[in-house]
């Protein structure tokens, strides 16, 4: 069938669009692909103590399997991830509901509520390091003023993970709240009107209407936070550097130290690629979940 003038114009437009956008696409792909390919190549290299490199095959990956610090790092990463995610979703949804219903709250108050996540993580880490100092910090001062026992906070092998999770929640729950607030504001009012007519209580309305309709938004927030939480670094590096002992030594912290402090870039690359695979896996899993709960 001969091409019509309209089809020719369409094809030409498509070609023009491709030609105009390809430099940017190629550049972006190059910027992402090159570091990944180089890291994969590095992971098959062995580095001496003076930085001399040689091909090592899969030695770095077999070392990983038998490295107790790797398994410790994996455990710490997941423990911190699950605890932080649960707290951030809980407090994020609560804050979003508060901001949604308390419409009379002034802009300044709203801004204060959500300001922590605008702070650089390094600044947040340094601030909390001072607040949580067991001897000089305000936290223990408040506890002892109320007649409660002081805590070692970040210096306790038992409490360091919950403490870091709380710091991160303080900073990022407002971010989750903003995402969920956007979701709340887009919910159709007609279903709430119907629920009201049917005499549903506020709790039932939340449980049977708000929560299910918010699930796609919540899963989106989960995906965004998961990518950050599985790569936990800033707060830990500033406050504990993976200590006390290895109690807060996430995979990211461990890989960073192996590379930048011990010069073993090959093994560090293998560690980081393993972590990247875990993050990708989590994102893919949550994406599937998001598709399943979409309405």
């Amino acid at each position: 069938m001969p091409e019509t003038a309209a089809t020719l114009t369409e094809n030409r437009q498509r070609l023009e669009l491709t030609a105009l956008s390809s430099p940017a696409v190629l550049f972006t792909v190059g910027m992402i692909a090159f570091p990944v390919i180089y890291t994969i190549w590095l992971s098959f290299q062995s580095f001496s103590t003076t930085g001399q490199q040689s091909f090592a095959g899969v030695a770095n990956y077999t070392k990983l399997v038998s490295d107790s610090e790797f398994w410790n790092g994996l455990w710490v990463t997941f423990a911190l991830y699950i605890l932080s995610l649960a707290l951030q979703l809980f407090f994020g949804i609560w804050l979003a509901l508060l901001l949604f219903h308390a419409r009379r709250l002034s802009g300044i108050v709203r801004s204060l509520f959500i300001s922590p996540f605008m702070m650089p993580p390094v600044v947040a880490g340094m601030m909390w390091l001072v607040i949580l100092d067991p001897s000089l910090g305000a936290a223990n001062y408040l506890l002892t003023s109320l007649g409660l026992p002081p805590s070692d906070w970040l210096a306790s092998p038992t409490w360091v993970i919950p403490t870091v999770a709380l710091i991160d929640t303080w900073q990022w729950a407002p971010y989750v709240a903003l995402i969920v607030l956007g979701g709340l504001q887009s919910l159709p009012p007609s279903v709430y009107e119907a629920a009201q007519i049917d005499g549903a209580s506020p709790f039932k309305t939340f449980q049977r209407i708000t929560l299910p309709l918010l699930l796609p938004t919540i899963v989106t927030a989960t995906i965004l936070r998961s990518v950050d939480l599985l790569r936990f670094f800033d707060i830990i590096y500033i406050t504990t550097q993976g200590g006390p002992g290895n109690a807060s030594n996430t995979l990211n912290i461990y890989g960073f130290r192996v590379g930048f402090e011990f010069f073993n870039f090959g093994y560090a690359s293998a560690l980081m690629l393993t972590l990247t695979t875990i993050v990708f896996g989590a994102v893919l899993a949550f994406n599937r979940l998001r598709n399943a709960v979409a309405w």
Partner: protein
Amino acid sequence: MRTKAFAAQIMLSVIAVGAASVVHAADFDWKKFQGKTVTFLANNNPVSAALLTHKADFEKLTGITLKVDGYQEQQMRQRLITVMNAHSDEVDVFMTLPSREGQQFAASGWYADLSPMTKSAVAGDYDYAGLSQALLKAATYDGKLTSMPMNIEGPVLYYRTDIFKKCGVDEPKTIADVEAAAKKIKACDSAITPFVSRGLKPALPYTFSNLLHNMGGSYMADGKSALCSPKDKAALDTYSRLLRDYGPPGVVNYSFPQISALYRAGRAAMDFESSNELRTVMEGGERLKDTKLIPFPAGDGGQVPTAIGWGMAVSAYSKQQDAAWYFVQWATSPAVQKLMAVQGIAPPRSAVANDPDYRKWIDEEPVRKEWQAALDVLAAKGSSEVGYPIVANPESREFVGQAVQDLILNQKTVDQACAEADKSLDALIAKK
């Protein structure tokens, strides 16, 4: 007549000396690299802070623009590693700790050889021979001089004379006395932390090494790790016990910023920390009159204080090593080191240490006299061994730090902690 001849002789001598000075001054052209920019990667510690207060003087003298890239110590090293692995010329001069990374960086070819520059391109008043020969030797690898010493430092014991008096404690003369004093102070005043020192894993080898050597221990014996030798075990036990039983809560996260803050706030009776912290500890003046300072007391091995120094190195990949050398030369000159000395940075030159202005500053406060006396001991008897004397020294400090932290946290016995550390360290020693 005789008087006239004598006067003429004197005048001729003066003219000759003056001419020689003119010739010397004329020989060295400080403005040779005017208009160039030298990038300095600095560690944000008291040493660089004191040096950089005079940055404008260098720029005025040479016409060189000094671009300073300052970071906390660990971040500085990470930046340096990134730059050097890329063979980049973006850093011309950097601060380095020969006792920690000297061997490793030298073997990696990161340092420019400064030996030729110290002979051919140096101002007449630089006084190379006046620098600490021990520190210069410590910075020389395979005949290459890798850095010029900026200071001399080591851990010293600051203690509160008023608290000691109140609790009836004498100045400790031995390590056992330190522990006895801590015990007495703990019973006397529960609001005061009797003893504070480094508990942060990568930082504690700095202070631990001093105690280890004083107790007669050593990191290696016959080419293997010796942490499970009787003296080393005793050192691990003593250091961890001092921090666990008499240290502040959360000491496992403590390095010099937290330690100095605690002592300056009046909350600690004994502070085993770097001599560089004098300025920080005395800030505000509260501790000026109630603090005394001594080298860490002797043990069974005598008194073997840790004595190290920061150095200034020129990058092997810098494209303007000659201009970079001008900055290094200026920063480590007698004049600048004298200016730094009166800011609490101990000079690696005996001439500066004996300079009348510096002595006047020292004599102003008793604690400064004690500080200088402690530094004299460090200079005379000091050991620069902090961590294992191997290329992978930085990594070795992790295992030493882990062993001590396991004991502070009561997670292992001494035998378990040292055995686990020895196993990892032997593997590290064997690694090429």
